[in-house]
C-alpha cells in the first residue's frame, strides 16, 4: 500500500492503494467516478480513456504508482467550465446534436480523446480526426457522426 496524491477534475485526491492498482479501478471504485468505462482491460478499446497531464491514456493500463502528483481529467470533468450554468460543454453538446453517441459506452472515452485532440489545436481535417480517435472503438455509429461532430467543434462552428 502506498499513499498516492493527485488532482482529479480540479480537486485534490489522496488514496491508500497498492501501487499496481489500476487508475481505472481507483476512479470507479475509490472515487465513484463511474463515467470512465472498462471495455477490454487490455488497452485495445479506449473506453477507459482519461487525460493524464493532458495526454489521452487508457486508464486500464496505468498503475497508480504512475499517477502520484499528476493531473487526471475524466468525463465528469468536462463540464467543469460550464458547471455553474448546469450545461453540457460545447463538445458534449455537439456530440448530442450530431447523433455521435448511440449506446454511449464508448462515449466518455471518445470525448476524452477528442478533447485532447482539440486542446492540442486539432484541425477539422477528417483524416486527422480519425487518426486521433483510432484508439477508441465504437461499434454503433460507424464513426461518421463522431468525426463530423469533432470537426464541427474544431472548425469553431460550435464555439
Amino acid at each position, binding site marked *: 500500500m502506498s499513499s498516492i496524491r493527485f488532482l482529479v477534475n480540479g480537486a485534490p485526491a489522496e488514496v491508500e492503494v497498492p501501487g499496481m492498482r489500476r487508475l481505472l479501478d481507483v476512479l470507479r471504485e475509490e472515487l465513484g467516478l463511474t463515467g470512465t*468505462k*472498462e471495455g477490454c482491460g487490455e488497452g485495445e478499446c479506449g473506453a477507459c480513456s482519461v487525460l493524464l497531464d493532458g495526454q489521452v491514456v487508457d486508464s486500464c493500463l496505468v498503475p497508480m504508482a504512475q499517477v502520484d502528483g499528476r493531473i487526471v481529467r475524466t468525463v465528469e470533468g468536462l463540464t467543469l467550465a460550464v458547471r455553474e450554468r448546469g450545461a453540457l460543454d460545447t463538445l458534449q453538446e455537439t456530440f448530442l446534436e450530431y447523433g455521435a453517441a*448511440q449506446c454511449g459506452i464508448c*462515449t466518455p472515452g471518445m470525448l476524452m480523446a477528442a478533447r485532447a485532440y482539440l486542446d492540442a489545436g486539432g484541425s477539422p481535417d477528417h483524416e486527422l480526426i480519425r487518426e486521433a480517435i483510432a484508439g477508441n*472503438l465504437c*461499434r454503433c455509429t*460507424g464513426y461518421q457522426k463522431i468525426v463530423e461532430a469533432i470537426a464541427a467543434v474544431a472548425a469553431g462552428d460550435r464555439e
Partner: protein
Amino acid sequence: MTIRTMPRPAVAPARSAPDALVLPSGSTVPGRAAGYPLRREGPAKLTGAAKYTDDLVFPGAWYGITIRSTEPRARLIGIELDPDVDWSGVVVVTAADIPGENIVSSIKDDQPVLVPVGGEIRHHAEPVALLAAPDQATIRRLRIHIRLLTERLPAVFDPEQSDHVFAQYEIGSGDLEAGFAAADVVLEGEYRVGHQEQLYIENNAMIAVPFEDGGMAVHGSLQCPYYVHKAMQKALGLSSSQARVVQAETGGGFGGKEDYPSILALHAALLAMKCGRPVRMIYDRHEDLAATTKRHPAIIRHRTGIKADGTLVAQDIEVVMDGGAYCTLTPVVLSRGALHSGGPYRCPNVRIRARATRTNTPPNGAFRGFGAPQVEFAAETHLNRLAERLGLSPAEIRRRNAYEPGDVTPTGQVLRESVAAQDVLRLAVEASEFERVRSATVGAARERRGSGSVPAGPLRSESARTASGIGLALGWHGAGFTGSGENHIGSVASVELTGDGRIRVLIGSTEMGQGTNTIFPLMVSGELGLAADAIDMAPVDTALVPDSGPTVASRTAMVVGGLCINAARRLRAEVEARNEGRPFAEVYQDDAARHGPTRIDQRFEPYPGIDFDDKTYRGDAYPAFGWAACVVMLDVDLDTGEVAVREVVAVDDVGRVLHPILCEGQVEGGTLQAIGYATIEEIKLDDGRYLNDRLATYLIPTALDAPAMTTILVEAPFSGAPHGAKGVGELPMDVGAPAVVAAIHDALGVWITELPATPERILAALEAARSAAAGAA
C-alpha cells in the same frame, strides 16, 4: 442525407398506404434535422452519469464468476474442491443447487444452466460451476482450486458431418427442372462465412438481488427482459411476481444480448440465493468473447439457371448453418436465412433447402441480420458471377430481376405494396455514379494487365501499387418477426395518462443505443398533439412494463411503435369524448385531476391480409420487406492484399423515417459492421476453442478503417403499421459484405467466396488466377 418519399405502389394494394406521421415541431435538434428531439438519454451518456450495470452499487454485494469447461465434449465425472483450501466464507454453486429445472428457457429447452455431474459437456467454455466471494482477490485465489474431472468424448466441428439436426426447411415454387431446361447458362457456386462476434463495447453484465420473501431481481445489460423473466421462473422455480428483471443502461447489443442474458441472470441469481446477498457477474472481454454467442457460420451452395438476356429462370439453393452446441435461436435464424437466400429477385422456379446442425462449439445465436447477411452475401456474389458470365453490368442484371410490386416470392407471397427494390437500386447507382466509376476501374484493370506482372502479384505494375474497385449489392430484409411469430407472442404496449397529468409510455422494448427512448415519445406525442418532452418513458422493469416482445428483428419501431400509436389514438379519443370533444392537449391535465389515471393497453392484432403457414412455409413470410442497396468503393494493396474501403453509398427503404439522425446512425453503424464482416472479422478455432478470444486478436474496424458514408433514406410505407415504418436496424447489415466482395472483384478480377476477404485469401485467389492463366498459356 436525403430522404426520398416514394410514390404509392403501382399495383394497387389491398389497403391504402398510411398518411405521413405528424411530427411535432419546436424540438431541439438544430441544423439539417431541425424539429426532431435530441437523444433523450444523451446528456446522461455524455456526462458519464448514465448507469450501466457495472456502475450500479449494491452495498454488500459479492462478486461471482463461472467455472467453465476446457474441452469441446466430455462426460463430467465430478467437481473437486481442493480439500487443502478453506472454502468457508465463499459459496460454490453446481447443478445440484438449482431449485427448478436445469434448463435455460429457449426454443428447444436443450441447454442446461450448469452441466450436472454425470452429464455431458458439449462445448469449450461451457458453464459447470459458479463461485462467489466478498472480494475479487478471494475469487482469483480460489478459482484455480476447483477442478473438473472429465472423460473426453469425440467432438464434431463440421456442421455437414453432424448427425444432429436442429431445424430444416424446404421451400419450393414452380418446376425446377423445367427452369434449368429453359436456361441458357447454368452456374454453380459455393460460399462460406464464419463466425462474427457482436462486440458491443459493454460486455455482458448482470447483478442479482435476492429479496427476503424468496423473490429475486436481476439488473442487467439486456435486450429482452421477458426472455430473462421466463428463464428465471423455469430454472429458479419462482412465480411470475417473484421474478423481476430490470434493464440497466445497455452498452450495445446487436443480438448478442438477446438470449445470452438469460443464462447469466440464472447464474447470478443462483449465487445470490445461496449466499443471501446481491451478486455481481460482470464479464471481462476475454470471457465474453470465449463464451457468448456469435453469428452462425454457414455454407451456401447455389445452382442457378439464367437466360442470355439476364432473366433468372431457376434457383436451387442449399443452406447449411452451424448451430453450435445448443439450439438457442437457431431454428429462427435458419428460417430467416432460408427465406432470404434467393435475394430480392423474381424467379419462377426455386428450391431452397436449409438445415442447421449441432457441433461442439459454443452456441451461435442472434446477431443483427439474423441469418440474412450470410445468405445474401452468397446470393449477391453468385448473381455478380452470372452478370460477369453474361457480360452484363451488375446494375443491369439487378434491374432486370429485382422485385417489383405484384411479383411473387418463393413462398407464394404476393408483394402487394411497399416494394422499393428498383428505387433503392436506382438511387444508389445514381448517387455513386456507379457506371462511370466502374468504367474507369475496369479500364485501369485492363491497363494493369497489359503492363505485365511483377513477382509480387499478377496485377502489380511499377506504377500501380494499389487497385481501385467499385461494387454494388442489393438486398431485402423481412420486416419484424418471420411468419406468424408476432401472432404467437401477442405483444402488449401501454400508454397511460397518469393521475398527476403526465403521459407515460410503458413498453418492454429496450434502449441499447438505437433510439427507443427518443422515438417513442415522438410517435406518441404526435398522436396526442403534445411536445415530445411531455411524454415519459417508464423504466424497463418487468414489475412495471408489459411484455412488448423482445427487442429484436428490427420490430420495435414498426410493431411496438404501431401499438403505441394505436394506444395513443384510443387514449386521445377516450379523453376527448368525456371532455365535449375538446382537443386532448387542452384538456388532459384537467381530465387526469378529475378522473384519475387512464391507461390503454394495446395488444398486437394480426396485420390484415397477412397469412403464413408455418408447416408448409407457404404464404406471407413477412408483413413487408425493407430494401437496401450499397455501393462500396475501395482500394486493394497489390503487395499485401489489404483492403481499404474508402467510400460507401447506402440507400435504405425503411418505410417511414421517424427520426432522420437516429435512422441514419443505424445505417452507418450497420454498414460498418458489414464491412468488418467482409474484411477483418474472423474467429479462428482450435479443437472447438476460439483462438482469438481477446480484443487484441479479434479485430473490429477503427475510425481509420471506416469509409466516408453517404446515406440516402427512402420511404415506401407499409400500410399495416399506422405510421408505415418497417424497421431499419438490420437492413444495412445485409448488403455491405457482398458490395465489398464485388468491389474486390472489380479491382482484381478474382472472386472471394469465403468471408472475410482477408489479405491471405485475396493473395491466394490472385495466385490461383495467375497459375490458371499460366496453365492456359
